[in-house]
């Protein structure tokens, strides 16, 4: 399968701290990749470099053959690489619907539609619906219709997380990077939320990279796992192989060993 994203030899240091120490990974189109590792292992730095928030000290990132290493976050988003955040980044004073309308507006504007002189209700590219309908449709797809008119700042944690991810879907991403999509969500809700996210995301045909600390979630939803440790990728492969890798078990998933074994046992059963 062809690589849609290719990161080669990424290095990033903050003073004496090395956050990325030669990270290389080629991500295949339409794959679902889980990024695991302890805090400070380099997962979020990797995502931040792909999305342009951080510029690597060395190394290059190619998206569909195009070098995107030096592009600004907005230019990378416009190319089709979108991200969600560990702490949901919403427009707090706006309702869920208004949040979506901001996103829809940006998509329209980037397509040269809905400007000062435009007439009628232009269709949102990729959604083929007028702005309001496109916003409603995405809210419905993420089960957020009942929160439509609630201010983002008063929404429960799990709903805020979903809204944060729903916002990324407005631009019809070709690659979606989810930074800890289930953090702050109760254990009972995790799988339901991941199911909903993956269903909505896969329906759009996006390649997904997600950072996750819960190994049950990783083994259930990822097709491939990249294990990070100390700014490097120490294992890369299918979840079963990576989560059973001795180095990964020692450095990455230590405390979660019994949960992985249980999850794999359940999967076998």
């Amino acid at each position, binding site marked *: 399968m062809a690589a849609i994203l290719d990161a080669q030899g990424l290095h990033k240091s903050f003073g004496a701290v090395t956050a990325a120490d030669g990270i290389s990974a080629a991500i295949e189109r339409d794959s679902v990749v889980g990024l695991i590792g302890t805090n400070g292992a380099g997962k979020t730095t990797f995502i931040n470099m792909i999305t342009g928030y951080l510029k690597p000290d060395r190394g290059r990132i190619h998206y569909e053959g195009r070098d995107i290493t030096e592009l600004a976050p907005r230019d990378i988003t416009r190319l089709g690489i979108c991200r969600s955040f560990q702490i949901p980044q919403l427009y707090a004073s706006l309702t869920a619907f208004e949040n979506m309308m*901001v996103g829809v507006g940006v998509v329209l*504007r980037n397509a040269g539609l809905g400007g000062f002189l435009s007439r009628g209700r232009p269709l949102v590219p990729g959604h083929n619906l007028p702005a309001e309908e496109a916003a409603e449709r995405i809210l419905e797809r993420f089960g957020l219709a009942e929160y439509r008119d609630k201010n983002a700042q008063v929404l429960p944690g799990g709903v805020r997380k979903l809204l944060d991810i729903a916002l990324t879907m407005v*631009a019809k991403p070709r690659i979606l990077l989810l930074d800890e999509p289930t953090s702050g969500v109760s254990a009972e809700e995790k799988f339901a939320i991941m199911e909903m996210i993956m269903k909505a995301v896969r329906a759009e045909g996006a390649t997904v990279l997600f950072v996750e600390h819960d190994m049950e979630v990783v083994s259930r939803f990822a097709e491939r796992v990249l294990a990070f440790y100390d700014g490097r990728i120490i294992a890369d492969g299918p979840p079963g192989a990576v989560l059973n890798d001795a180095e990964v078990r020692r450095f990455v998933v230590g405390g979660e060993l019994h949960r992985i074994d249980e999850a794999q046992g359940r999967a076998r059963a």
Partner: protein
Amino acid sequence: MSRDRTPLALGGIFVAIAAAGPFLPPWLLFILTLAIARGLVALGLMLLLRAGLVSFGQALYYCIGAYTAGALGIRLGVSDVLLQALAGAGVAALTAWILGFLLARYRGIFFGLLSLALSMILYGVIVKNEALGSTDGLNVLPSTLFGMKPHEGWLRYSVLVAASGAALIAALLVHRYLATPLGRLAPAIKDNEIRVEYMGASARQAIHVKYVIAATLAGMGGALAATTVGHIDPDMAYWTTSGEFIFVTILAGTGSVIAPFLGALIFGAIHTVAYDLSPNTWQMSLGGALLALILFLPDGVWSLFARRKAA
């Protein structure tokens, strides 16, 4: 979807002003025209405020508009109210477009103080410049409208109608702009600029556009004020003038394009009454009014209408 009544309301206000004008005393026509001029400046400030930016130096463009109108009359003999207003708006827009490359990089207190610094530089330049009338200022030519010189008794009314017409068009355009994706970006920029960038939009470019629009409106307001008062002076660029515009904007609220004009009218009324009652301590009355406003109507006078609509 609720119907947008703002254009209709704006049109109704314009018709009401035009119809009632001939029956109003000259002092009230003066207050109304000046309120429209100030309301235009506040309309621009409202755009910036919605994006979380407070300009402490909007008097810069008010003064540029006023001096452009004055210079047009004195140097070129152009005294047409609307031509002066358009020229004032144009020169202010051009200045803001250039300065905007610098200002759009800053947020919060830095944006506010940088805008203040620029207005004070203009104040200093005018004060030291004899050709611009120094501290005494300059007299502005009596206004004409479409090449005609209105009769003495109708002059104030003509200027009021011209100012109302210009304000009507400006408010309708801003209202339309607020409904565009770029206009809707303002509260998003205020809430979370990082997210705006990650959605694929440039917050800096959006702020630059808003800054130029705000300056254009301030320039037009300054030109109309110059024609109304008949005199221009460096105080139009002074920081207290910028403070008055912020006062009007906060007094009005950011809920509608009508609000800044209402705020400017209330400001004018408070100012006039307070000055009449106590010429030496009128600032105290203004301060008291602002204090009461922040305590009881923190979202501005327009929030009263918004509440009624919501109820």
